[in-house]
């Protein structure tokens, strides 16, 4: 059954900018739900460079992508944001009563008077390895994720990659598959030691195969895979397989955002610089996803955009109430919201 949620503001994307928007909206008493296709907050900072230093966050001479995310989470905690992870926002539409409805691929809808698109460079999606002709097999024999394990029962699986996803699925699927071959370009892995040890133990028992190499070609017809050519350190050879699962990490794709009827400028959402509102009143866009003259794709710019957006969002959600400008340093009412004692 479709789940439905009513709230003040729906934020699409839980990157640094979406997270900080919770803070600015929270100070103005607006409640938020956030949706992200990733399984955790932080967007690019957490997914692409958690360990790397950022040097241009005001007052933090240096902070890592993950630390920045953790501190934002701590900062917005008083506002109790609700997170919906592991789902992609597929549709955004206006309702007759003037509110918006946001739909995800997990059969859920969220309704709110304000939607904030903080979708960064787009949603993170699996990278397609550049194997010639792979497109023809996608969705038939080539899958980038396992949604239902049953779909792989009794198949000859070829799993490619050296990270946790490749190892985890090798271990999880081998009991139900007809055969499993894991391919990685080197015998070292970027995965939990425990999984690597388990995989090698199973290989030694003969329960699965591990090959060092890279997939260079696929053969089969009508989307049905028959075999793959592996290029090993010394030679090329064929491996019979009926399903291929490549795990080559994630890349950002704009995704369905382009279909929401908002004005775009080179795949970015055009906004004004007063409220960061899009061509549709009530829908805002902040952070890397927006464009205006002079735009810089920096975290600090996204934070500024969040603050101005929040003022405008508040006027939409509570049109009859006046907003008084206050400082967190001196306002007792703001401090109460933040839980300052």
């Amino acid at each position, binding site marked *: 059954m479709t789940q439905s949620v009513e709230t003040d503001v729906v934020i699409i994307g839980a990157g640094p900018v979406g997270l900080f928007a919770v803070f600015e909206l929270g100070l103005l008493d607006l409640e938020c739900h956030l949706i992200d296709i990733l399984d955790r907050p932080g967007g690019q900072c957490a997914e692409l460079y958690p360990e790397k230093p950022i040097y241009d966050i005001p007052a933090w001479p240096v902070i890592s992508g993950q630390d920045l995310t953790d501190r934002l989470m701590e900062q917005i905690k008083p506002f109790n944001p609700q997170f919906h992870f592991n789902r992609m926002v597929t549709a955004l539409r206006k309702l007759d009563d003037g509110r918006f409805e946001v739909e995800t691929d997990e059969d859920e809808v969220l309704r709110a008077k304000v939607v904030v698109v903080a979708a960064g460079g787009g949603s993170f999606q699996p*990278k397609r390895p550049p194997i010639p002709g792979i497109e023809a097999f996608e969705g038939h024999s080539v899958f980038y994720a396992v949604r239902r394990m049953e779909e792989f029962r009794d198949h000859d699986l070829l799993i490619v*990659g050296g990270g946790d996803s490749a190892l985890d699925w090798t271990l999880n699927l081998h009991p139900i598959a007809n055969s499993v071959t894991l391919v990685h*370009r080197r015998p070292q892995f970027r995965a939990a030691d425990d999984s690597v040890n388990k995989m090698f133990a199973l290989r030694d028992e003969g329960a699965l195969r591990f090959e060092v190499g890279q997939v*260079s070609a696929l053969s089969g017809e009508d989307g049905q895979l028959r075999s793959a050519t592996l290029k090993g350190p010394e030679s090329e050879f064929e491996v019979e397989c009926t399903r291929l699962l490549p795990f080559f990490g994630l890349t950002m794709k704009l995704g369905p955002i382009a279909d929401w009827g908002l004005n775009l400028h080179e795949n970015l959402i055009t906004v004004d610089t007063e409220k960061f509102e899009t061509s549709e009143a009530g829908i805002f866009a902040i952070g890397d996803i927006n464009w205006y003259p002079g735009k810089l794709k920096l975290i600090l710019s996204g934070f500024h955009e969040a603050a101005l957006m929040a003022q405008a969002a508040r006027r939409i959600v509570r049109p009859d109430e006046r907003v008084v400008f206050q400082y967190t340093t001196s306002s007792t009412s703001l401090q109460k919201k933040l839980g300052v004692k």
Partner: protein
Amino acid sequence: MTKLTIVANDGTNFEVDAEDGSTVMENAIRNAVPGIEAECGGACACATCHVYVDDDWSEVVGSPDVMEEDMLDFAYDVRPTSRLSCQIKVKPELDGLVVHVPERQA
């Protein structure tokens, strides 16, 4: 200044005067060498700046560190001379360096 030659996949040679301390990737981008995408801007987070170091230079340039080796897993057709060009810093010892751009980036 250190001379670099970046050979595009179609065989075009890009001869570049590179500043010491800059990266090979930065020089490729500045000179619009086709096939070097560098999506992450040099943070060793995308593997779209993959190059093959010329055999004669492979030893001088050296091998990737652990982080770069992990990232190379996301590149296509990785060979023993593969490097991510954003992780190769230009220095006087590399004067005359030749690198080749692969057929495609992942």
